[in-house]
């Protein structure tokens, strides 16, 4: 399965890139599992995520073609 991953704000800067385009084995993974696949460790505390531009928890399912975003807590307005 192919997934589009996006990083925002401090996370984007710390990782040094705007996203990843991983090809994973299987046809479903959790958001947390996707992070661990990409970064070799569990998600850090306070990590926020979205699947297909909707907020999603770390246990939400990710499937082929999905857009997954990781970002720190929001600070707008």
């Amino acid at each position, binding site marked *: 399965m192919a997934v589009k991953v996006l990083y925002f704000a401090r996370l984007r800067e710390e990782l040094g890139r705007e996203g990843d385009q991983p090809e994973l084995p299987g046809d479903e993974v959790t958001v947390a599992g996707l992070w661990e696949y990409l970064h070799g460790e569990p998600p850090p505390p306070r990590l926020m995520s979205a699947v297909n531009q909707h907020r999603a928890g770390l246990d939400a399912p990710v499937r082929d073609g999905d857009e997954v975003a990781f970002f*720190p807590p929001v600070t707008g307005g």
Partner: protein
Amino acid sequence: MTVAIHHEDFDPWALLREAEQAIPAEARGAASVFVGRMRDFNEDDAVTGLFLEHYPGMTEQELERIVEAARARWPLLGVHVAHRVGEVSPGDALVLVATWSAHRGAARDACSEILERLKHEAPFWKRERLADGSSRWVERNTPA
């Protein structure tokens, strides 16, 4: 009902006059407005600039979802939400929330609720530039 992301400085009062035109003159009743501008201080350090990042696509959807939730809860005749992104200078407008209703209480409560949800839920991130040339990501939102 409009949600707008601005990449350049915007004039909130001109936007409001324009947004109000979309509401029939005889039905305008009460308007409640919040305008937030960039201040030149935060946590005691002199802030000389701000970079506002958003998630194109998701940010607009989240704002529209927040506006729809307010419309379902209060009898609103109009809503306008504007948010700045990109490089911001002190004094620039950051956020505008305006609600129109027949009743002042509904306009006020809806405006306040949209603003608080925007601040806590909408995907925007601030990085401050300090007087000494360094910069830092804002880690948490300001309390009301």
